[in-house]
C-alpha cells in the first residue's frame, strides 16, 4: 500500500506542483483582488454582479452559444472521427483536412467568414447570381454567423478528442457481433456507439468549456445579442484597469462551469472522462433508470438503421453483404465529405484572396498580385515569429505530455483520496478564462525574470495544454487493458520495460493525438502571448493579431497560405514516411 501511494505521488506530483505554481498562484492572486479593496475585504464587486441583471444575461448568452457550438461540433465531428477510425489508407489525408483550418489564424478565419457570409459576400453573390434568392440573406451579425464560425473552429477539437477512443475500440467485438447475425445498423448502435461514448463525453466537455472562452468570433460575427461575458472581463481589465470586478466576473464564470460539471457528473458520471468503469456502476440508482432507457433508444435506432440499410440495399445503393470490416458505406462518406468541405471552405477561400491587388479581404479578389507574399517573405519579423512559434509549441507540448500523461494514468487507473480534486485541478486551466491566466502569469513572471522569454511562454502554454493532454489520455488509458501489463510482469518484465515495450506502444495513437493537441494549442494561442511577449519577442498569432488590430490585410491571408502549405508538406511527409516504414516492415520475414 505504501509503495502504491508512492507511485501515485510520483505520477501526480509533477502535475500538482506545476499547476500550483503556474496556475493556482497567479489565478488566486487575481481572484484575491476581487475581494480586496484598498486593503480591506469587500463584497462590493459581487454585490454589483448580483444587482445588475446584465451579467446574468451575458452569462446566459455565453452558455447558450457554447451549448449550441458543442452540439454542432460533436454531432458534426462524430461521422468524421468514425470514418477516420475505420479507414486505414486515407487516415493521414483525412486528418490533414481536419487539422488544416488550425493553421490559419482564427482571426483570418473570422474575417474569411465575414467575406463569405456578408450582405455582399461570396455566398449571397452566388445565390443571387443563381437566381435562388431575391434579396441577400442575413447570414452574419446574428446567432447563425457566430455558430457557423464557432462550430467550424471547434470541429477539429471534437474530432481529435473522439478519435483516440474510437481507434482503441476492439475490432473483434464488431466481428463477433456480425458473426452472431447483427446487421450493420445494430453493429453500430449496439456495439460501436456505446464503446465510443467516453470519447463523445470528453469531446463534449472540452468543446463546451473551450467555447466559453471565445470572444473574438462572437464580437466580429455576432450582433449585440451575441455579446459574451469574456468581453466584459477584457473590457474591465484593459479599458478600466478594474481587476477587482474582472476577477469577480471570472469567479462567476468559474462557479457556473463547476456547477455544470458537477451536474454532468451527477447525471452521466465522469466515467467517460475522469473515472473508471467501476465508478460508473457505483451509481446503481441512476443507472437502473438510464440503462434500460438507453438500451431501448439504441435498440430502436439500430432497428431503424437496419431497415434503412435494407431499403438502400434493395435499391442497390449499398452492397448487401457490407461488413463492418469492409469499411463505411457511401452515405457516411457523403456526409463526411460535406462536413470536411465545410471545414476547409474558408481555408481554401483564403488562397485566391491572398493574391488580390486590393488591400482588403474581399470577394471576388481583384486582379492578381504577389505583393502580399512578397511582403511576408521579405519580413524578418514573420520569419522570427514562425520559428519562435514552432519552438515554443514543441517545448510546451513536450512539457505538457511529460506532466499530463502520468497524471492521466493515475487518474484513470489508481484509486486515491482527492482524485476528483486532482481531476478538477488538471482541467481547471480550460475553465478559467485565458486572460486571467495571462495577467496572473505576467505578474508572476515579472518577478522571476521570465517575461519575454521562450521558456516563460512555453510554461504558460503548457498550463493550457495539460487539460487537453489529461482528458485525451484518460479516455485512452481507461480503455487500455491493464491485464496486458500484468501478463508482461508475469513473464518477467520489470515496470520500466513493460511501460516502454507494452503500454506506450499500445497507447501511441493517444500520445500522438495529445501531442498534436498540445502543439496546436500553443501554436494558435494568443492571449498569453499578448501578455508575456511584451512586444520584444513575437509569435505568429501575436504578429497576426498586431497586424489585424490595425488592419486585416491580405498579407495575413498570404502568411496563412504559406503556413498551410508548410504544414501540409510536413504532414504529408510524415504520412509518406509512415507508409514507407510500413512497407519495409511488411517485407521483412
Amino acid at each position: 500500500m505504501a509503495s502504491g501511494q508512492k507511485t501515485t505521488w510520483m505520477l501526480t506530483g509533477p502535475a500538482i506542483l506545476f499547476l500550483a505554481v503556474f496556475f493556482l498562484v497567479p489565478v488566486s492572486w487575481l481572484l484575491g483582488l476581487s475581494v480586496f479593496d484598498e486593503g480591506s475585504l469587500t463584497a462590493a464587486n459581487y454585490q454589483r454582479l448580483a444587482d445588475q441583471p446584465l451579467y446574468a444575461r451575458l452569462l446566459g448568452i455565453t452558455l447558450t452559444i457554447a451549448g449550441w457550438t458543442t452540439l454542432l461540433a460533436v454531432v458534426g465531428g462524430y461521422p468524421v472521427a468514425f470514418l477516420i477510425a475505420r479507414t486505414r489508407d486515407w487516415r493521414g489525408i483525412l486528418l490533414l483536412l481536419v487539422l488544416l483550418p488550425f493553421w490559419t489564424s482564427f482571426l483570418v478565419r473570422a474575417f474569411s467568414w465575414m467575406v463569405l457570409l456578408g450582405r455582399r459576400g461570396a455566398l449571397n453573390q452566388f445565390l443571387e447570381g443563381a437566381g435562388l434568392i431575391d434579396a441577400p440573406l442575413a447570414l452574419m451579425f446574428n446567432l447563425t454567423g457566430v455558430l457557423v464560425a464557432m462550430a467550424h473552429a471547434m470541429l477539429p477539437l471534437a474530432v481529435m478528442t473522439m478519435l483516440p477512443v474510437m481507434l482503441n475500440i476492439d475490432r473483434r467485438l464488431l466481428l463477433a457481433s456480425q458473426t452472431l447475425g447483427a446487421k450493420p445498423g445494430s453493429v453500430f448502435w449496439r456495439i460501436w456507439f456505446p464503446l465510443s461514448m467516453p470519447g463523445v463525453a470528453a469531446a463534449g466537455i472540452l468543446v463546451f468549456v473551450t467555447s466559453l472562452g471565445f470572444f473574438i468570433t462572437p464580437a466580429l460575427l455576432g450582433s449585440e445579442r451575441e455579446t459574451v461575458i469574456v468581453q466584459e472581463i477584457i473590457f474591465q481589465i484593459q479599458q478600466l484597469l478594474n481587476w477587482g470586478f474582472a476577477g469577480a466576473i471570472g469567479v462567476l464564470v468559474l462557479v457556473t462551469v463547476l456547477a455544470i460539471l458537477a451536474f454532468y457528473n451527477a447525471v452521466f458520471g465522469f466515467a467517460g472522462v475522469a473515472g473508471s468503469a467501476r465508478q460508473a456502476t457505483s451509481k446503481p440508482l441512476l443507472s437502473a433508470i438510464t440503462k434500460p432507457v438507453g438500451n431501448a433508444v439504441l435498440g430502436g435506432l439500430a432497428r431503424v438503421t437496419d431497415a434503412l440499410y435494407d431499403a438502400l440495399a434493395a435499391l442497390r445503393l449499398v452492397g448487401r453483404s457490407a461488413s463492418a470490416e469492409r469499411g463505411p458505406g457511401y452515405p457516411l462518406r457523403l456526409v463526411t465529405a460535406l462536413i470536411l468541405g465545410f471545414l476547409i471552405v474558408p481555408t481554401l477561400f483564403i488562397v485566391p484572396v491572398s493574391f488580390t491587388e486590393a488591400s482588403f479581404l474581399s470577394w471576388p479578389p481583384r486582379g492578381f498580385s504577389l505583393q502580399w507574399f512578397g511582403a511576408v517573405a521579405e519580413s524578418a519579423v514573420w520569419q522570427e515569429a514562425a520559428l519562435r512559434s514552432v519552438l515554443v509549441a514543441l517545448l510546451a507540448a513536450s512539457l505538457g505530455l511529460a506532466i499530463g500523461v502520468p497524471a492521466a494514468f493515475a487518474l484513470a487507473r489508481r484509486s486515491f483520496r482527492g482524485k476528483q480534486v486532482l481531476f478538477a485541478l488538471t482541467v481547471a486551466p480550460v475553465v478559467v478564462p485565458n486572460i486571467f491566466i495571462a495577467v496572473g502569469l505576467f505578474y508572476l513572471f515579472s518577478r522571476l525574470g521570465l517575461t519575454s522569454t521562450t521558456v516563460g511562454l512555453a510554461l504558460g502554454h503548457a498550463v493550457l495544454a495539460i487539460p487537453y493532454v489529461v482528458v485525451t489520455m484518460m479516455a485512452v488509458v481507461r480503455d487500455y487493458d491493464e491485464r496486458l501489463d500484468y501478463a508482461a510482469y508475469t513473464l518477467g518484465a520489470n515496470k520500466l520495460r513493460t511501460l516502454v515495450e507494452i503500454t506506450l506502444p499500445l497507447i501511441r495513437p493517444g500520445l500522438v493525438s495529445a501531442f498534436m493537441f498540445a502543439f496546436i494549442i500553443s501554436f494558435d494561442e494568443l492571449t498569453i502571448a499578448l501578455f508575456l511577449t511584451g512586444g520584444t519577442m513575437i509569435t505568429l498569432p501575436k504578429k497576426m493579431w498586431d497586424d489585424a488590430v490595425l488592419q486585416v490585410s491580405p498579407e495575413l491571408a498570404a502568411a496563412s497560405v504559406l503556413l498551410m502549405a508548410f504544414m501540409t508538406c510536413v504532414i504529408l511527409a510524415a504520412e509518406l514516411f509512415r507508409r514507407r516504414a510500413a512497407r519495409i516492415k511488411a517485407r521483412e520475414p
Partner: protein
Amino acid sequence: MTHSRFDVTRRRFGQLIGAAAVGTLAAPAIIRAQDRTLTVRDPGGPYAQGFKEAFYDPFFEATGIQVTGVQGDHAPTGLIASMVDAGNYTWDGSILSDNAHQVLVAQNYLEPIEVTDAIREVPEQLRTEYLMGTDVVGVILAYRTDTMGEGALTRWADVWDVEGRPGLRALRRSAFDTTEQALLADGVSGDSLYPLDFDRAFAALDRLKDDVAIWWTGGAQTSQLLATGEVDVLPTWNARAQTAIDDGAPVMINWNEALYTFEGWGILRGGPKVDLMQEFVSFCAQGPQQALFTPHLASGPTNPSAYATIPEERAAVLPSNPVFFDNMVKSNAGFWGGVGDEANERFNAWVLS
C-alpha cells in the same frame, strides 16, 4: 498570516505575493540604465513606420540615443500597470490614448512630463501633465457614396434621419463616442456637451435602435464593413475610413461635428530611463518632426507648425487641419474616467434590451 498582511492596498497585495518568489530583479535594471537606449511601445503598422522616420531615427542622429519601437497590445494599460508594479520595465514609455492615460494617471502609473519650449508649442488641449500629444485622431462619420450619394450626410443628425437618408447603419458597441454622437444628433452643441446627459442620449438612441444593423466592436472591422459595402453609414476613426478610401472604395468622410481625441507619449513611473524619455518626448513635440509621420499615418500632428511642411493634398485628410479643426468637438477623456464603467454597464444592458 498577521493582521498587517491584510492591511495593504490592492497593488501592494500583488507585490507581496511575488516578493516571496525571488529577491527583486534590480540588478538588470541598473545595468540597463547605463546604456543609452530606449524601448517604447507604439501601436505598430503605419505607426511603426511613421514614428521610425519622424522620431526614432532622427532622435538617434541628434543624440546618439537609440530608440526601439515595439508593437504592443492596443490597450496597454494592464501591461503598464503590471510592469510598474513589478519594477520590470520592458518598456520605458508608450503611446497612449487620452483615455488610457487617464486610467493610468488615476492609479499613479505615469511620470509627469517636463514641459520644454518645444512642448509649449503644442496647444494645451492636446497635452496633459502626464501625456504629450503626438497625433490627433478624429472620430468621424463615414458613408458609402455609391448608395448614399456624395455629400449626403453632413452632421450626426443625418444618421438619425432614416427616412430621408435610407441605408444600413452601424454604430459602435460602446458608450464611448456613441453617447456623444447621440447628443450631438439630438441638438446639443459641442460647447455644452459635457457633462454628458445620459438620459437624453439613451432617449435619442432609443429612436434609432431598430435601424442599427450592426453594432461594431473593432476598428479593423469598420474598414472591412466600409470597403465591402456591408453597411452604408458608420462612425469610425478617420484613419480606418481612410484605409478603405485609399483602397478605392467609394467612401466619404464628413468632418463637420467630428469628435477628436489625441494620443501621445506617456512615461512609465519610476523606470530606470525616465530622463532619457523626457529628452525623447520633448524631441517629438517639434512640428517638423511630426510632419514626417503624416505620409504613413492619417493622424494629425499636434504641433500646428507641422502643417508648414505637409503637402496640401495630404493635409486635407488629417484631423488637426485648421480647415475643419474648429468645427470639431473634443472628446473629454477626463469626464469618462469617472463614469466610464457605469455608463458602459448601462449601455450594455440597453443594447441587449
